[in-house]
């Protein structure tokens, strides 16, 4: 056998497993799963005391290539992914040029193969040039390998266009991922509208800008029967809409980011206008953070995704109004969730496996998210005792824009296996 992970605690909800076991891997696939796998592997790793999970997938990442290789490349982004415990990432189409054609999709996949670390799942544009007007060639892109469509960062405001996109996506059974933001209500804002924006004199983004659009998508998803996934959901009321739609049988799913789970808009004031607290959707209120944490545990939220958005220091070190939205997340997400949710007992390891692996795989139809014998050997191994200081200077990502610098965390990735190959270890 190519590789045997010895005596780790295997957590795999797809097989209802929570036992100390050996995992045997051969030919890039899970070959054996037993309390004791006989024989000797060409490589054996003792993972006693560690947790073996189906490979984590970050379904919301910006790899910036092609176009902004100064901030991130497919290679550096994949290196960051595996260092953060992710075996696969879905990359958003807002590159330069936009991934709205077969050619760009093919380019991304070939660069990912060369990088040879994490699996890359491209997301195609809904509309040409992300302009929200005419549909991109979704069928062509699907043939080239996209797993979903989204106009992330440039929300489709025209509801008729969105309706058509949902109808059309059903041909390919791929989800429409929507960044929900009513641009008129958001009104050029740079942080959450509320007491802190008032005090700081910053233009506020009304939370209704997100909530109205989530509501619209729920209605259109019901009507079209399309699979719709709400990206980086951030408010209590938006979550209520999703829960209601799900109950009514609508194929609506949603993701949240670690930063929306852990920070509020007070961070903008506390950091004295640090642009690493500027993201879209913006950091919200404590009541939103609390509602999201409850949704995480209850199952109302399907996925934790990072919205990894690298920006160079030069671009980010601007006036708060002028700095771009977004922060990096690949190398902090798993540790943050372990430290703040798993260790305190808010999340079980089974829920962790669903949020980071099984659910994103199911939504994007990737056939991952399981350690069943015969499946692709993408494996994430966690050390729940690992001590980690967040040091942006040591990131594998080309960018350092994180609000979590200096945080001391316990728990995080220890080993990342992609297609049976150890691509990263502590």
């Amino acid at each position, binding site marked *: 056998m190519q590789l045997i992970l010895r005596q780790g605690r295997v957590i795999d909800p797809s097989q209802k497993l929570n036992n100390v076991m050996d995992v045997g891997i051969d030919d890039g696939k899970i070959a054996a799963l037993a309390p004791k796998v006989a024989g000797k592997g060409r490589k054996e790793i003792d993972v006693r005391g560690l947790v073996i999970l189906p490979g984590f997938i970050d379904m919301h990442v910006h790899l910036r290539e092609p176009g902004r290789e100064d901030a991130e490349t497919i290679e550096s982004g994949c290196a960051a992914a595996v260092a953060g415990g992710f075996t696969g990432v879905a990359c958003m189409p807002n590159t330069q040029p936009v991934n709205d054609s077969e050619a760009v999709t093919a380019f991304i996949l070939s660069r990912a193969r060369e990088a040879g670390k994490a699996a890359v799942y491209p997301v195609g544009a809904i509309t040409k040039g992300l302009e929200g007007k005419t549909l991109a060639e979704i069928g062509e892109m699907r043939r080239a390998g996209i797993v979903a469509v989204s106009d992330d960062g440039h929300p489709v405001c025209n509801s008729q266009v969105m309706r058509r996109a949902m109808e059309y996506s059903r041909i390919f059974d791929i989800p429409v991922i929507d960044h929900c933001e009513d641009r008129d209500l958001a009104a050029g804002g740079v942080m959450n509208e509320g007491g802190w924006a*008032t005090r700081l*004199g910053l233009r*506020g983004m009304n939370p209704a800008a997100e909530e109205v659009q989530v509501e619209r998508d729920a209605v259109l998803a019901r009507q079209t029967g399309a699979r719709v996934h709400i990206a980086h959901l951030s408010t209590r009321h938006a979550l209520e809409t999703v829960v209601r739609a799900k109950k009514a049988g609508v194929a609506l799913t949603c993701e949240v980011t670690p930063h929306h789970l852990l920070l509020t808009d007070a961070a903008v004031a506390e950091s*004295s206008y640090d642009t690493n607290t500027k993201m879209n959707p913006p950091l919200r209120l404590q009541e939103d953070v609390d509602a999201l944490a409850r949704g995480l545990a209850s199952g109302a939220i399907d996925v934790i995704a990072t919205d990894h958005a690298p920006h160079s220091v030069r671009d980010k070190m*601007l006036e708060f109004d002028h700095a771009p939205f977004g922060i990096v997340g690949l190398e902090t997400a798993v540790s943050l969730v372990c430290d703040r949710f798993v260790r305190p007992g808010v999340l079980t390891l089974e829920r962790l496996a669903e949020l980071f692996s099984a659910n994103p795989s199911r939504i994007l139809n990737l056939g991952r998210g399981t350690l069943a014998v015969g499946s692709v050997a993408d494996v994430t191994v966690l050390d729940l005792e690992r001590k980690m200081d967040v040091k942006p200077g040591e990131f594998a990502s080309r960018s350092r824009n994180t609000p979590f610098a200096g945080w001391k965390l316990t728990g995080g990735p220890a080993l990342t296996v992609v297609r049976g190959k150890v691509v990263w270890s502590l």
Partner: protein
Amino acid sequence: MASLSHKDLLGIEQLSVEDIQLILDTAEALREVAARPVKKVPTLRGKTVVNLFFEPSTRTRSSFELAEKRLSADILNFSASTSSVTKGETLLDTAHNLEAMSPDIIVIRHQSAGAPHLLGRECRASIVNAGDGMHEHPTQALLDGLTVRTIKGRLDGLKVAIIGDVAHSRVVRSDTILFSRMGADVWVCGPPTLLPWEFEKLGARTTPHMEEAMDGADVIMMLRVQHERQNEAFFPSAREYASLYGLTRERMRSAKKGAIVMHPGPINRGVEIESEVADADYSVILNQVSNGVAARMAVLYLLSGNSGLEP
């Protein structure tokens, strides 16, 4: 000995009651300089003050310049139109270039809230916020406080009504914090479209009804309203705005006896304030202007010992 507890003056928010009192006392002492035949003292001789203005401003800038000149500082004026900002240089590039000239104090006016804070983190010079976006305009609040204290003899226990475009005003934020911190009862009034969420957290009561705000007020401060706002659906027309929120002689008749009228300027005669009201005896708009120089001299004097400290 006296000192401010900060290297920079970024906002009233950071100032304690003692800090505010110290600045006002110092400003009061400095007002006498303007009455002399030689309106200049050598206090800041050899110190360099940079006036970094990214937004056009005649009043604030002239006021700062006069304050600096009266204290004998060397002045470097740097405005966005003559600078390399238009050539793609970032605020930090500009700041680092200025730092290389070792200024002691940088006075900055910028369209973006928090720009002075960014500078404060990066520069050894003391930063004075001369207005940042919709955030704060601390020296305006200090001169307003000085004006009211001089006329009324105190700040605590006064009712201060601030009326107009609250949402887009940095003056109202600084004034609200200053007056409420000094014990005044601050009321903020404007159409709900121009009253930002949770303004009460700054220490004011809010109302959309001008009569309620003006009732028993010792100080009535009008805020400038820009005509452009009517195109952004904040109110239907300047005419309707003036009828609902304009300070008229009619409204002044029901004001408390001895109430004073203030305005940070420049005024829109006939919109937020009737011409006759702006020129009446109870208007102290011109006192505000002369107190502006003294308040800014006080800030420069008190901060001048702090430059050169680590940011």
